[in-house]
């Protein structure tokens, strides 16, 4: 059991942490550049530093508690999150203004004094915990009926988050579910079947009243990237055009730190948040973008390696889930910035400003590192070994 690979395990936590910190540093610099001016204090970057501190504390706490203990708490936590999400949905009907204010026509935050909690960000982590806890020793998901429960676990928070509304976050849960099921050993033909059914349902969903007109508009804008059309540029494709120009004008080596004209004059919408990737590309060019992508690759590759080395099924599922969700989020965000994905309000993990998102990401990293940490030799059987004869 204790081979060279297993010895590698405790070391693998470090690259993940370093890559995450690099990403956050890049995000902080980008936000600072967007805000900086003559004698101006960068308020957002300072705030983000505080959030980073909280995130790192959370990471330490996870190390102390250990992911197994967390796994035991998975269902109560999941229940708590569901209650909070229901509260957010209810807030639309009942006025809970001091605690749940309406911001940009959405109800996503619970405000307790100076603390703003974006529940859906924590819901992602808790969802992974719960799903991993559910899947860890089960075999019945190799039947199609056995898949019902994992799907129910997914669709419940998804629907609630969709009601906030926060399409981006709710969509993230689906690829995570598929990857975790896949790794846990669900039958490929089942997964493919469900995927195909989903694809077939997509057009129906597109034309159903569930889709907002502005969301359809964004999808249309994606397929109609005609940059010479002023109407497209100024309306449907406004965000996309701006972000593409910001990225493209960065060129190979970028405009230089705080030099890019784009954030000197506030030309990028949501520059510190959803479009921070464009800010990085504008400042540091192709090189900067490569560094960001490399960091994600390091995190995901290390995470998956941890998953493959660890012998604990819960650890493995947790590691895969965290990787999947981070990977999906990063792909969708960068994809929308460069015009490969429709624009949804999705932050770039570790990089974008926003407390809850950052803290949740570091909690995820904490889980990864916790899985990687050495512990007493495991006497359990190898994960997912069950009688193939069934």
């Amino acid at each position, binding site marked *: 059991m204790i081979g060279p690979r297993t010895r590698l395990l405790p070391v693998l936590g470090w690259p993940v942490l370093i890559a995450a910190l690099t990403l956050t540093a890049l995000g902080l610099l980008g936000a600072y550049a967007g805000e900086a001016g003559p004698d101006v204090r960068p308020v957002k970057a300072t705030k983000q530093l505080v959030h980073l501190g909280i995130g790192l504390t959370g990471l330490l706490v996870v190390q102390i508690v250990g992911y197994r203990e967390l796994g035991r708490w998975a269902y109560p936590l999941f229940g708590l999150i569901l209650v909070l999400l229901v509260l957010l949905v209810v807030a639309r009907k009942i006025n809970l203004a001091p605690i749940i204010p309406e911001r940009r026509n959405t109800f996503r935050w619970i405000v307790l004094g100076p603390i703003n909690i974006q529940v859906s960000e924590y819901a992602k982590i808790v969802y992974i915990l719960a799903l991993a806890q559910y899947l860890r020793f089960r075999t019945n998901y190799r039947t199609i009926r056995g898949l019902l429960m994992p799907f129910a676990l997914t669709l419940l928070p998804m629907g609630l988050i969709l009601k906030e509304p926060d399409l981006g976050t709710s969509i993230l849960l689906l690829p995570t579910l598929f990857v975790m099921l896949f790794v846990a050993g669900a039958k490929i033909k089942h997964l493919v079947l469900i995927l195909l059914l989903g694809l077939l349902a997509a057009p129906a969903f597109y034309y159903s009243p569930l889709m907002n007109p502005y969301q359809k508009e964004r999808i249309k804008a994606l397929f109609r990237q005609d940059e010479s059309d002023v109407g497209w540029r100024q309306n449907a494709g406004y965000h996309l055009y701006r972000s593409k120009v910001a990225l493209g004008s960065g*060129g190979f080596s970028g405009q230089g730190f705080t030099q890019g004209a784009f954030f000197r004059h*506030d030309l990028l919408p949501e520059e510190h948040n959803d479009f921070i990737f464009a800010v990085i590309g504008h400042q540091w060019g*192709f090189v900067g973008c490569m560094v960001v992508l490399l960091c994600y690759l390091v995190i995901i590759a290390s995470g998956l390696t941890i*998953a*493959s080395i660890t012998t604990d099924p819960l650890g493995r599922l947790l590691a895969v889930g965290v990787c999947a969700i981070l990977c999906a989020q990063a792909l969708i965000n960068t994809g929308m910035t460069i015009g490969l994905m429709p624009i949804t309000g999705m932050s770039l993990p570790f990089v974008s400003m926003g407390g809850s998102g950052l803290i949740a990401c570091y909690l995820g990293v904490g889980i990864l590192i916790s899985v990687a940490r050495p512990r007493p030799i495991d006497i359990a059987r190898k994960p997912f070994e069950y009688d193939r004869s069934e």
Partner: protein
Amino acid sequence: MFERRLKVVLTIPVICGIILIARLFQLQVVFGTSYQQKADEALLAPRHFLPPLRGRILDRYGRLLVSDEPALDVTVFYGALSMNESYLQRLAKRLGRQDPRWRGASPSELEAEIEDRIRRMWLTLEQASDTPLYSLRQRRDGICDAVERIRRSVWKKRQRDGYEEPLESVRLRDDTWFYSVLRDITPEVRTRIELELSGLPFVRIEPSVRRVWSADARPLCHLLGNLGEVSARRIDGDPRKDDPLACYRSGDRAGVSGVEYLGEMMLRGKRGYEEKNLDGHRKEFQPPIDGLDVQLTIDASLQRRIAEILESAVAEDSHRTGASCVVLDIETQDVLALVSVPSFSHEQFKKEYRVLRDDAKRRPLLFRAVAEEYQPGSIVKPISLLAGFKHQLVDPKAQVYCDGSFIPESTFWHCWTHWKGLPGHGYVAAEDSIMHSCNIYFYGLGQRLNAQRLTDFYADFIYGPDSRRRSTTGLIEERAGIIPTYDWITKKAKRKYRRADGRNYAIGQGEMQITPLQAANIYATLARGTYRDPKIIANHPRQERDERIQGVSAEAVRIARRGLYRCVNEMGGTAYKHARLDHLTICGKTGSAQCVARVVEMKYTFDLGDGETEYAIAPTIENAREMLNLPRNTKCIRREVMKRWPPNRTEEKTPQTHAWFAGFAPYRHPRIAIAVVIEHGGSGGQTAGPVGRTIFGALLESPHAYLRPISYVQDNLIKSSSVDETANAASLDPLATNLQP
């Protein structure tokens, strides 16, 4: 188990990553330079427009009438005008970032501060310029309305193209512009505004122009017209609306009346612009292209002289409310003078517009020469004679006996001599009928011709033979007059021709109405033999018409013209005493047109809704609304006449007649045609005749030699001819050969 699956999972991000990297490479490395250019474009600050100078208006000899002078406007950014929320948020953000005093303030505080600043800006503008706040608000609302209208139409078009988006998210070029809210500010106002509003990014003081009228322009006030804010409909219908520099912008000023409107396409020019990027470097500059000058056919000094003559004529009698005169060059059809009295100055128009508007008695704003329709009276008699010739109902030699009344025992159908207590004209032939203006002759002619044939011929003569066109100069003020043709009678008057109509129309009474310009054009046509449109702008490319009038023989025209000649130059002619000049052979005709008294005060009753009404006694409906502080669209449900002008002088029903004189000169080789009308002037011969003579005198005295004294003509052209003009007239008249045999 399933460790292979982990490797499969790893391939997904790797593949996606490769796609991402390829796309990034394409964007940043392959197309990097082109995006760099686009970034530069995106960095451009809103364009700074440079206004062109509007073209000048000159008279026919190049005298300056109206021109533009540089001035300064206060302009405000559209976002601040419309209180656009996202713009205010952006400003608030910038304020919080750039101003140390506001650092750390909450967004709502910052937004409140920005709103407060905009409010203070309006107050400062009000105090600095002495413009009441409500009129500033009106301007702002006008601009916003126009822009929002454009936004709606763009939105509708995009919806038709399949875009679904809320109306507010449509962005327009117009959103990034500054709009004038205060025009032509004085240096003091400028200093004050610069001092008090310098820190606000949404207010600017920008160069603009103001329109300046020269001293020569005053008698031309009606013709020159005015500028006004361009309406949304006009922006939409503008043929140059696709050119961002040439098109109108909401809030722009364009000609709304007179020559300013007629020559708009020549005068308006094209604005230039200056583009700076947000860092302050000038990126692009295009100078404005000034508008073209418009040269009128009007002689400004002649115009002023005639205006003086008419003003003194109007001043002679308190009943006279106004006068008008048109002078046409017969050869070129240039309008040499287009006078309308009373007139006003540009300053008066700007400052005392309401006073001018509410003067219902004198109506100074009315452009009488083209926009007021009068009963023509006897001055149409030569045309009805021509109509008689056309239909072979007139024998030049045949005589009609006039004993003063047409139908025995009738109280209405008399010759004009009857009203003056004079005996009838006795035996009257065709020529004599014009010379004496004998109504009896024309009653008979009109009856035999019948109203339809007569009015058809009038229409040919006044509007031109082949055209349904009603406006001849292109001025928007110009009115068509009323020729009671069959169509008009059935559609507008909603009746059938009566037996008496022919008689009435033959002497220019009844429903028939023409403008002074049309009257002058009738006489020019008579003198020339063909119909042409009068011309007002000398350098305006315009289709010329030169059309013959069907069925008019040279012989008929000669008889009519001889009648006109004898009317002025032979003892017994109606204009002999009043209009004859020794050294010019004027041919002309007087007219005393019966008219109705005009309403000068009314009781307007308005419906306020819910059955409530309110009334006011006022000269105009606008004035009544203002007196009651009602909005512009309040409906008036009842009008009662309170006062008419002129008041009945002698308990008779009919007020004093309009006095006409129309004619041309000289008799041979006619060069100038004129028409004069003096409202409520009384007898045409006594009032308008002398005025016509004075005007011909002024034309003789003019340094531009429109007419030459007879001695000159005799010496140079017709030395051999005898003094007996009538005998040789036909053979000497080169224009007579133009006419149909």
